[in-house]
């Protein structure tokens, strides 16, 4: 099954998202800050990353940029999640290298659609 990296510093958010994705059959790895996210992505080689923006140590923007600048991780699709519903965040996220964008609170069915779409696209690319 596809492996998804959840980057989220808020424990309940991380936990509930992980459990719901696992219920859908996805493999889940987690990271609690940007730096960790980059390390985990390199070691665990996830199929997709859910990246929160407001993170300690290294924020989501920077982590996204580093991941997209690294040959070993640049092919991994990233869905940027923001608690700010600003439309400009979407543009900034895309500009930083994110493949998709969603706002919190997450509408789970909608998020699933985006995940499935990106994974399907990745499978075709391979």
């Amino acid at each position, binding site marked *: 099954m596809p492996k998804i990296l959840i980057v989220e510093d808020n424990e309940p958010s991380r936990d*509930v998202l992980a459990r719901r994705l696992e*219920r859908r059959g996805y493999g889940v790895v987690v990271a609690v800050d940007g730096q960790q996210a980059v390390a985990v992505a390199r070691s665990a080689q996830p199929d997709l990353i859910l990246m929160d923006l407001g993170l300690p140590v290294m924020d989501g923007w920077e982590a996204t940029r580093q991941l997209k600048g690294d040959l070993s991780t640049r092919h991994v699709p990233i869905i940027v999640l923001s608690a*700010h519903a600003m*439309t400009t965040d979407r543009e*900034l996220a895309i500009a930083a290298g994110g493949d998709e964008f969603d706002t*919190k*609170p*997450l509408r789970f069915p909608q998020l699933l659609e985006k995940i499935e779409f990106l994974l399907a696209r990745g499978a075709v690319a391979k």
Partner: protein
Amino acid sequence: MTVSVDPPASESGMSVTGRAAQIFAAAQREIHERTDRLFAGLMAFQWLMGIIFALWVSPLAWEGPVSRTHLHVWAAVMLGGIISLFPALLAFLRPGQASTRYVIAVAQMLMGALLIHLTGGRIETHFHVFGSLAFLAFYRDFRVLIPATIVVALDHMLRGFFWPQSVYGVMVASQWRWLEHAAWVLFEDVFLFVACRRSIAEMRETADRTAALEHEVRTRKQAELDARSARARNDAVLEVALDCVILMDEAGRIVQFNPAAERTFGYSTAEAVGTELANLIIPARKRASYRTALGRYLTMGDTASFNRHLELVAVRRGGEEFPVEVAIAPISSEGAPMFAAYMRDITARKQADRELHKSRDAERQNAEQLAELVDELRVTQRRAEAATRAKSEFLASMSHELRTPLNAIILYSELLQEEAADDGHQSSIPDLERIQSAGKHLLDLINGILDLSKIEAGKMPLLLETFDVGAMVDELVDTVGPLVYKNGNTFSVQSEGALGSMFGDLTKTRQVLLNLLSNAGKFTKDGTITLDIRRATIDGGTTPCLEFAVTDNGVGMTAEQSRKVFDAFTQADVTTTRKYGGTGLGLAIVSRFCDLMGGTVSVESRPGHGSRFIVRLPLQVVDTAVDTATHAGIA
């Protein structure tokens, strides 16, 4: 000598010399004419005397016993007449002419010759010749002596040669006796010549003096006239002058006091003249300084106070003091120094000045107060803006902080519902649904607050794009369907003609219509809801727009409620939220979004009959508040 002088032809146009020549000529002419007349009389007298003499000396000529009138009688009558008549006639017909004089001179000498002959050449009669020359000298023209002398010389020479008895009274006379006679005549001529010259010189002098005198008289008369008319003019000016004009002598005593001064100060001219100005119109306490100034001028020529406008205090008859504007000017005259004081009562002007100052002060005060108010307002406004900004930022960050736990709540409630369904714990599902529903309501509230605060902070950007209105409405109907149909309502969309496309913010336009339609669904039960769309104009018909009218026949609102319906957190009343649900922010957001897009929203409603919300949005929305720099930073 009396000289009648003709009045000068042109008094001003002639020089003194010219006038003297004129006077001289007139005097000369007068002398000539008078002498002409004298000779005319003399001629007649001599003729008569000649006849008488002839009759007396030799009335009859005897040739034997026969006597007849002596030839001399006839000669006296005939020759005397011939000699006398012509010049006498000329004297009357052409008096004063030079020719008349010469004719008279010749005739007079011929008459002398006749008389000498008639008296038989008596040597005594020769005195007539000398007398005649003296008479001729009356002309004061030595030239008449020349023909006279020639006539005498010729007469003596010719008669002495041909008929000595006739001229010398002897039968034989020396050939050269005439020369002796002529020499005596010339001897007299010399005296007469000198006398004539002197006389003429005197006449000229007299004429010059007369002309000079006349000139003097005329000049004086003119000066007097000038002075009189100048005085008359001055008097007239002073008479009608609006200012007081007071003339003073060197002691400051009033010499002239015009009617304006009489009116202003209350004294008549008769009372004022002769009084010292200081005593009359200057308050007692000021007299000393006034006199000092006048004295300074008189002794040192200090004109500091003169020819300047001064404001002084004057006093009227009766003691009333009042402000005057004064100018004192020394009058240059050859006599003792004089002064003219011009005064004007400036009570009214002072009053006006004071009032003007007062009103200016008041104006200034008002302006200052206004400026203070404006400053206060600015400070208040800045504070209000700062407060709004702080509030908006607070709300933005708070909504962010709220979203994270809310995210967990909603996701967990959904997870629990899934797990409960899987595990067969059906009884807990409704409660979990309530948790989820409450979470979503809270999310709506947070989103609404966030939107409003962004609008208020000016950080709500417009995303302008061209979109198809029909497609937007179709999509809207799909979304809004469950909301409008839920209370047993019917819903229809009506549009007039082709809607075409619109350049605007698609998301916000959809949000506006969504809010209005969901409101209509919320407040209408078993009724009808319609969305009417047509093209119209706003801004007084200048801007083409699309009009969206959402009409329901639900509960409606009172006028009071209608007025407040677009304010945030004001549903029709506080119970509404409880009864109908909703955040109370929907219409506030509608109103703000319409404003942002340059459109309008209005409402018509009657309680129990339903409401109609009309939204007009420009076909071409213009972004008036582009603020990308700041909205980019709110993340």
